[in-house]
């Protein structure tokens, strides 16, 4: 009786294509592509599947946000009854026409001039995934960023400047700024939208303003997949998703877009938690979606590459020339061979352009830039080489870490188990990562020692940024760390809460090395101290060398707990990169607390996942 009624209802609603029965449609509603098109999350068992979309305009059924079948029924019905909806939902219309028997024949045809005009203008022939890599001294960029670029046919011979870049990001109030806004941004406090720019604005933003290298991955999609993708992208116009930094972020939304056209790869389901941009690039690669890779160095990378080709005298000339154009007439300059002269002028120009970022009102920089540009115009006789691509970031180690170490602490054997959510420290294999950067979140170390099993460390955040100063650049190096850790305090191994920060300088005396020194300040909560909450100023200095096989790190730090005592620590560590997502680390540490001292030595195996 019930099914007969259902049939009758179905028949009333979909009289014109009786061959799509309600059973068929119920089954179709479970098609992964339909769920992807509605941006449903992969539901946990026993949990109601829901769409990530936070916008009523996106659904045609009142309960479409949580009912795939209802939305499917409503879509079929309303796209026929109100043909103008086809212009708002060309993706659904296209897909339903492909999979629902008779739907296409029943659908009243309608012109969608706005949509068609957009498709014509964007004129997409290929889709490129763009990764803007992390940059050492800009926390906002540290995890990188991804977006899509849509290229017209024949883009290689032409220019990607006019290509269409599609970016998912939060839409911020004009007065947004400050840490409160940042925290709100972490937790979905801002609406997220897809927005488009011409690609050259992105090139300027990343390679010039923010000095970030860009990686462009051409995707292997068929024409019909691109057609459906573009139709679906149009549906996302002005549709709001709340933006979450860790999971529902820029990179996650792109995965969902690919799931619409390639449900078999099921990319978004691979990221139920944090979607770190570079990990999502790896997912594209693992699904064989990457056809071609192109590297676009930042202004700074290009400058450093050119400076590295010059000898010391030529580098000095470059720096002088940037401030005094008469150097070009000097004997020192004229002694150089023609190719070097050209490179000196070109590098001085790039250096000035770099200096002008954020400083474009400085008329004297502009004046000298222009004069150098004129000289480039006159002396150009050989193409200036582009900085070669380093190892691409998706080839680097994965961002999750589990480690096991065994060692001896003050004569007692111990075993440590370490888990780190993300991302990269100064001993991890460097390939694919920016050098001198350590960025870690959520690290947990549990130690078994003697008969005890105890929490050794719970680190919330750890950032170290070592950028070398030289004739041209004078960046500051800095660090910050927040978490729980064990400290030997007055004869007891004590778990303390601490936060510390430091700032200082780094120099590169030999290639691929960093010699650094910082002043530090530490705030510690420790009930064994004279004052439970204490401030401890201090210093930290060290040397790091990157070898082909791994990294060497030697560092010492001291801090003076005010009105109490001091701690000193020296550490020597060498890592060896292993082939399959692994590394071995040997480490020796000397600690002196007040007038007690002890050693610790260990061997650690790291596995990245």
């Amino acid at each position, binding site marked *: 009786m019930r099914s007969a009624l259902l049939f009758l209802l179905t028949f009333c609603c979909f009289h014109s294509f009786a061959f799509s029965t309600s059973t068929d449609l119920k089954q179709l509603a479970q098609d992964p592509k339909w769920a992807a098109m509605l941006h449903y999350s992969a539901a946990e068992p026993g949990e109601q599947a829901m769409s990530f979309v936070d916008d009523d305009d996106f659904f045609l059924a009142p309960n479409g946000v949580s009912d795939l079948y209802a939305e499917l029924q409503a879509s079929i019905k309303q796209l026929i009854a109100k043909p103008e909806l086809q212009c708002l939902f060309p993706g659904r219309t296209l897909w339903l026409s492909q999979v629902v028997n008779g739907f296409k024949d029943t659908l009243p045809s309608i012109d969608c001039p706005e949509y068609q005009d957009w498709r014509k*203008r964007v004129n997409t022939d290929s889709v490129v995934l763009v990764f803007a890599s992390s940059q050492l001294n800009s926390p906002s960029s540290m995890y990188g960023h991804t977006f899509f670029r849509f290229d017209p046919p024949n883009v290689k011979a032409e220019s990607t400047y006019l290509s269409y870049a599609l970016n998912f990001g939060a839409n911020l109030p004009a007065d947004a*700024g400050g840490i409160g806004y940042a925290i709100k941004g972490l937790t979905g406090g801002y609406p*997220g939208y897809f927005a488009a720019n*011409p690609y050259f*604005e992105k090139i*300027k933003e990343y390679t010039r303003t923010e000095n970030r290298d860009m990686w462009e991955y051409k995707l292997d999609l068929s024409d019909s997949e691109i057609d459906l993708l573009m139709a679906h992208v149009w549906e996302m116009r002005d549709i709001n998703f709340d933006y979450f930094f860790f999971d529902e972020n820029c990179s996650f939304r792109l995965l969902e877009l690919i799931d619409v056209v390639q449900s078999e790869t099921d990319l978004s389901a691979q990221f139920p938690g944090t979607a770190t941009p570079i990990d999502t690039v790896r997912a594209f690669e693992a699904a064989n979606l990457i056809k071609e890779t192109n590297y676009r160095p930042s202004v700074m990378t290009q400058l450093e590459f050119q400076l590295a080709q010059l000898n010391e005298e030529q580098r000095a000339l470059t720096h002088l020339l940037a401030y005094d154009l008469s150097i070009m007439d000097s004997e020192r300059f004229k002694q150089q061979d023609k190719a070097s002269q050209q490179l000196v002028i070109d590098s001085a120009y790039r250096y000035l352009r770099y200096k002008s970022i954020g400083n*474009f009102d400085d008329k004297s920089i*502009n004046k000298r830039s222009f004069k150098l540009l004129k000289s480039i115009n006159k002396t150009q006789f050989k193409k200036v080489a582009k900085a070669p691509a380093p190892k691409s970031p998706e080839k680097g180690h994965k961002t999750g870490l589990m480690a096991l170490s065994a060692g001896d602490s003050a004569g007692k054997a111990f075993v440590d188990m370490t888990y780190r959510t993300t991302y990269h420290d100064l001993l991890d294999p460097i390939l694919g990562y920016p050098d001198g950067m350590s960025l870690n979140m959520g690290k947990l170390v549990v130690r078994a020692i003697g008969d005890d099993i105890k929490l050794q460390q719970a680190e919330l955040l750890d950032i170290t940024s070592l950028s070398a100063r030289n004739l041209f650049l004078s960046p500051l190096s800095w660090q910050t760390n927040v978490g729980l850790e064990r400290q030997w305090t007055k004869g007891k191994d004590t778990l303390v809460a601490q936060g510390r920060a430091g700032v200082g300088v780094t120099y590169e005396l030999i290639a691929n090395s960093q010699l650094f020194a910082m002043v530090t300040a530490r705030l510690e909560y420790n009930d064994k101290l004279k004052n439970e909450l204490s401030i401890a100023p201090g210093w930290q200095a060290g040397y790091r060398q990157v070898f082909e096989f791994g990294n060497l790190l030697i560092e010492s730090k001291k801090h003076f707990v005010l009105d109490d005592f001091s701690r000193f620590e020296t550490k020597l560590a060498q890592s060896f990169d292993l082939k399959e997502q692994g590394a071995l680390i040997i480490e020796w540490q000397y600690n002196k607390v007040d007038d007690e001292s002890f050693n610790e030595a260990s061997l650690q195996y790291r596995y990245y996942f």
Partner: protein
Amino acid sequence: MKKLLIASTLFASSSAMAVAPGGPNCGWGNMIFEGQAGAGSHIVALTTNGSSGNASFGMTFGTNGCSTEGKLTYGGKEMIDVSLIMDEFSEDVARGEGEALTAVAVSLGVDAQDRALFAETLHNNFDAIFPSEEATTEHVVSTMFVVLKEEKSLAKYVS
């Protein structure tokens, strides 16, 4: 390649654009090195990858007051808004190659086989197109048109 004396023609042609394309604040007065904003000082960009203002979906340019969608018309010809890429464009013209230069050629409809000549022509006339660091977009574009008109096989793209 002949170099051109164009100062006089310049004034004649610039009057053709009494109304700035794309609206009055559209960057026709932009100079070569303008528009290099500093790195985002907003900490909020840390967590959102977002930007202030309205998200747009066409290719509109929110930054410099233009009401166009990435393209302008100049003398009835549609082309890329050079005011947004003055820095890159001047550099490419100085070198005689580059993506900004190609983008301008493509946006003017210059055929693939004429692009080398297009690049060379602009390269050889760098001094006229960019007389100083204070050259405005208006000057750059109008001079470029004059230079191109003088070159037989390129004239068709700007007339």
